[in-house]
């Protein structure tokens, strides 16, 4: 004898089973993408943290390099000052360049300077300008003037 299961299950219970089936399907379908999303976010976080740590070390390296350069700069500045010291300049001047201190210093008294008197003029700054245009246009005007009586 064939047993009809459906006829034996009450209609309300069948409805609940269907609902469970409908709800269960999306959960299963979302589990994998959700897992992937979490993995992706975790990777992003790790990547960012790693980048941050790397940047931190880069900054530390740059700070160290800056300190080194500052140190070198200070040492070079000291060398410049030492090379410009009077003892060293005097030694170079007397031994290498065979220079000596000034023996006779002569102060020349210059006659009082007479400044040239400004020439009175009526010219305005623009008075020396010609009315004609300059350049090739001016040349053309001049050529025309020469030919037109």
């Amino acid at each position, binding site marked *: 004898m064939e047993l009809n299961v459906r006829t034996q299950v009450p209609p309300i219970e069948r409805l609940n089973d269907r609902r469970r089936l409908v709800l269960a399907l999306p959960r299963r379908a979302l589990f994998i993408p959700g897992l992937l999303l979490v993995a992706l976010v975790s990777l992003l976080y790790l990547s960012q943290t790693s980048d*941050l*740590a790397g*940047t*931190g*070390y*880069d*900054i*530390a390296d740059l*700070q160290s390099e800056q*300190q080194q350069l*500052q*140190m*070198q700069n*200070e*040492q070079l*500045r*000291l060398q410049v*000052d*030492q090379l*410009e*010291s*009077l*003892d060293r300049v005097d030694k170079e001047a007397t031994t290498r360049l065979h220079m000596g*201190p*000034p023996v006779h*210093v002569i*102060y020349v*008294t210059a006659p009082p300077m007479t400044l040239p008197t400004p020439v009175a003029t009526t010219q305005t700054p623009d008075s020396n300008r010609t009315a004609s245009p300059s350049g090739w246009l001016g040349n053309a005007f001049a050529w025309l003037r020469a030919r037109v009586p």
Partner: protein
Amino acid sequence: MPSPGYALGYPDVVSTIERPTVTGETNELDTRRWRVYLIGSFIVACVLLLSARLVYLQVIEHAHFGTMATAEHWRESIIPPRRGDILDTSGNELATSVTYESLYASTTEVSDPAAVAQKLAPIIGAPASDIQKILSNKQAAPTLIKAWLPDDVATAVEKLGIDGLFLQQEPKRVYPQGNLAAQVLGVVGADNNGLSGLELAYNSELAGKPGKLVAERDTAGDALALGPHQYTAPINGSTLTLTIDRYVQWVAERELEAAVSQHHAKGGSVVVLDPRTGAVLAIAGRPTFQNNATELYSQQNVDMYGIPAVSNAYEPGSIFKIVTMAAALDTGTVTPNTSFFNPGYFNYYGGTIHDAIGRSPGPETMAQTLTYSSNIGVAWAAGQVGAVKFYEYAQRFGIGRPTDIDLPGEASGVLRLPTADDWHPFDLATNSFGQGLSVTPIQMAAAVAAVANGGTLMKPYVVKRIESPAETRLFYPTVVGQVIKPQTAVTLTNMLVQVVDDNTLGESRLARVPGYAVAGKTGTAEIPIAGGYSPNRTIASFAGFAPAENPRFVILVRIDDPQDSPWGETVAAPVFSAIARQLINYYQIPPTRGVNANGT
């Protein structure tokens, strides 16, 4: 055998409920139960123990372990400030701080000291045996192998990559001009604090304030650059700009060194002042220490840290006649032409005064008294002035009290007043020519500068500007007082010019500068010893200024115990002349008078 219920298709209830028990099985169950209880009890005990330990660590010892954890993960490092520079009046660096790398070793990590020493020795320039000795002495704390390596040496050491060695950046105080003005600039100790000179006097301004970095650190102990941190920036030291001119200082030191060497003297001092402002242009002293020496802190060097021109008082001798004559002229007691009869000795309150160089008895003017440096003449003039006025003027000129110059260790000198118990009226006579009292070179130079400055005494000073990131402090000339009338200063200046110009018996001829009027006075002071004065030891000195018409500088030269000649004229006056000639060229001062054929 299956139970009856099983055969009928019913659950085997009866068999489970009414199962027959056997004594052996009961014992086994009990044993198992006890085992479970035992294990359970053990686990519970462990949990309780761990919980108790946790409570102990987290609650009772919270503060202690919290501090340890913080120290493990957080790093607090002190950031030293950069010590301020010291510049001369034109901005040339006289003292500065430079960072170097020092080589340290964690000796416990160095496995083969001999091999490491052999590698390091040629690079850092130290004996391999010394390095090996340091490395073999195993210590927990880092040990210094060599301080302040130049950059190229530090790089070479780093390239070796030896385990247990590390480089640490450390500041070093350096003096780019070499030993110039070493005593004035002073010395800095290993703790970066000043020990002498300006480094000591202005230590609070130069030192700055250290900063602090509290930061999370990585496994290597380095601070995480982007980690949480608290940063307090260091405040660097202020920059001092001095009134001292490095060229004037250099000239003064060079000429002083030459004179001390030439006369086999014990030492000496030179002070150069700008009489118009009191600004110190140079202070030189010999002997001095080497400020870049490795043995900078040796007792021999420490003994020379002081500034003799400021801290060593001496009997000035005849230079003091300038003060006596200023008092006599300013009170109107005498004029340059006032004459008295000089019998060759002077009896005064039971004592007798003689001149250093005897002359025939005869009339003598006050101008001649200065020119011949007559002890009898100034003693007579001081007697005319009277003790009250004489000491009043001496005090006006700043004798017997510090000038308050901004340098450490200033001596006040000694001036016994008539109110003192041990003062005797005869002291007036001896004090008038600079015996029985003491002055420092800076005091005497300031007093002479007052004459050059129209009778106005200025306070000498060395620092004219202090610059910090927050503010700039300027120091202006300070007038101490009008010690004599301007007309008296002019009269006295003319008398002092005559002292240098005199071609007969003048003692200051060697101080001349061709083409310029120079005012000045020599001094030859006997050195006091127990029970009197040394018969053959003197302090030779000269104080003067130029050009006399418009003085630009005052120079005081003091040479201690010259061996070949005791006189100020032959020992100190030429030093004045040599310095004055170079300063006149330096300041480009045109001649004020014609030059004779003999160059005078």
